[in-house]
């Protein structure tokens, strides 16, 4: 008796079956700029990780004679810094610290901020007010000022930089996670899940997180470049990484005296920061459009 409805509506052709993530990858690969940026970043990260195996000069060993050699000097392809250390080695080793300080706080803030934001967004009411008002207090300060204040209070050092930058990035991520969660929570499928008797924890795990993590992740990737620049800024101000560690921000600081003698060398760390953050931003844009599934 149900023949009419049984055979119904099976004509709509859907090309081949593919999952969500494979369609994201496919869309991402179609964007040459984003792919290019991903390749550059990957190269920087690989170089930083495998720096000890790259047969580079010792980044800490200087020489009073060979100070501030220009680019292309024999044995020093990118010249030397104000203490005669090999710039190529220092930039690559510097990438280690810079990327580390740029990424780790964002990763930590991503987890903490998402947890807070999802809790606030799903629970609503008093819990939401409590979490979001506290977040707002932190949010009221400019991020640079907040980072300087916390780092200044904690003192210089890598760990303290990580802590202060993490604290700086929790509020914005919490905010984004909260707003995405609230909008997902208002959708009918969450109501349908509640109507099936599922508890809050199950609904968050199955229905909320999957739809919140994507946008928050994309937002977090856009913060990595800010974080890197902030980290470099802290080092530049002397409340981040301490010399003689190679770190791009710190190098920019110590090389600033050489700006009239050998401007190219002095600019190199800045160029590295610029390229990396530009790539991170473009990559984040690419991810954003690749993950935006609309019908």
């Amino acid at each position: 008796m149900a023949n009419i409805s049984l055979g119904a509506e099976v004509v709509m052709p859907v090309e081949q079956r593919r999952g969500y993530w494979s369609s994201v990858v496919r869309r991402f690969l179609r964007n040459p700029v984003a792919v290019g940026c991903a390749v550059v970043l990957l190269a920087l990260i690989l170089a930083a990780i495998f720096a000890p195996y790259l047969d580079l000069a010792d980044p800490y060993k200087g020489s009073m004679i060979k100070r501030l050699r220009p680019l292309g000097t024999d044995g020093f392809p990118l010249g030397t810094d104000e203490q005669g250390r090999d710039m190529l080695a220092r930039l690559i080793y510097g990438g280690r610290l810079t990327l580390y300080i740029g990424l780790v706080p964002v990763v930590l803030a991503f987890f903490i901020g998402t947890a807070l934001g999802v809790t606030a967004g799903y629970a609503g009411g008093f819990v939401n007010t409590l979490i979001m008002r506290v977040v707002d207090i932190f949010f009221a300060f400019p991020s640079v000022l907040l980072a300087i204040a916390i780092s200044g209070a904690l003192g210089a050092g890598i760990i303290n930089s990580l802590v202060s930058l993490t604290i700086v990035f929790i509020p914005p991520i919490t905010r984004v996670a909260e707003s995405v969660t609230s909008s997902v929570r208002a959708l009918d499928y969450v109501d349908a899940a509640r109507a099936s008797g599922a508890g809050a924890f199950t609904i968050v795990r199955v229905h909320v997180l999957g739809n919140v993590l994507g946008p928050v992740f994309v937002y977090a990737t856009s913060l990595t470049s800010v974080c890197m620049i902030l980290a470099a800024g802290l080092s530049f101000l002397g409340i981040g990484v301490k010399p003689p560690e190679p770190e791009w921000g710190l190098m920019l600081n110590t090389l600033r005296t050489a700006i009239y003698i050998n401007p190219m060398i002095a600019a190199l760390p800045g160029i590295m920061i610029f390229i990396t953050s530009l790539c991170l931003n473009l990559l984040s844009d690419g991810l954003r459009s690749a993950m935006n599934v609309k019908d």
Partner: protein
Amino acid sequence: MSRIDQQLDGRDRGGPAQPLILAQDLKKHFPIRSGLLNRKTATVHAVDGISFEVRKGETLGIVGESGCGKSTTARLLIGLIELDDGTIVFDGDAVGADLSLKEMRKSVQMVFQDSYASLNPRLTIEESVAFGPGVQGLSDPPKRARDLLARVGLDPDRFGQRYPHELSGGQRQRVNIARALAMSPRLVILDEAVSALDKSVEAQVLNLLADLKEEFGLTYIFISHDLNVVRFVSDRVMVMYLGEVVEVGPVEAIYARQAHPYTASLFSAMPSMDPDNRTLEPPLAGDPPNPVNPPSGCRFHTRCRFAEDICSTAKPRLDVFGSNRDHLAACHMRVPFSGHSLADVETSP
């Protein structure tokens, strides 16, 4: 799937005469907050003291315009929003006292209007359908999901692994129906469930709903603004206006003669489907008023062409209209000696 029928017999506690749902004096007001201190500045009277029953095996149609509270009523029944006041008796058991909300939820499911927003875009449709049974610890949720997808006309091998955006609107609504059925409910609330579909697809889904009702012994609450569809599917119809029930009764009785002037206006606003007898006068002027500050007395008096003094001062009660004891209306004109000049002056026998 006769197993569900057997289950059903065991679940029918109150007997055939006991209404499946007995709603008494349901009330839901939403505060509107604004300003710096989030102070309550106004109240939306979404549902304001309504009582009705849903009988076993019937389809109760609920009609009304925007702001009449029909969707709020649905969400109250399924426990998605909390009651401010009133009681819901489910098959003889008072919800909250004899029967926990969680228990009741297993028996009441809902299909929403927006087929896209009601499916999680990150889950395949098989996962979506299997979610509820998984939560309730029913046996073999994936198999159950595949059976039901097949039953609503979607081949699980072809469609099971698809995502919502890969389906058409009609197909998605079939998935939503399958998801509701996966919980083996006794009552399914269809909240404008076919309104967003194209007419040709709507007819397919209506046929499907009729088949499923018979097969699984379901009871439906069918909320819609389309009176043609409501007439086609409903046994009884309830008309709501600004958070109140103005008329309720068997579908033939109401379609034959509307007791309440608002119901009559709704019917004359229906397209005539006759090019020689087009509508010449709009039955009502203006838009439905805002449920924030509903009018006093009979809430319809501001738009009613029969309104008199009594209508703005006294609230009419739902009362039997005509010979059919099932046909009730809340209008002073239908109450003898109510003070309205058009009211019957003879006492009913």
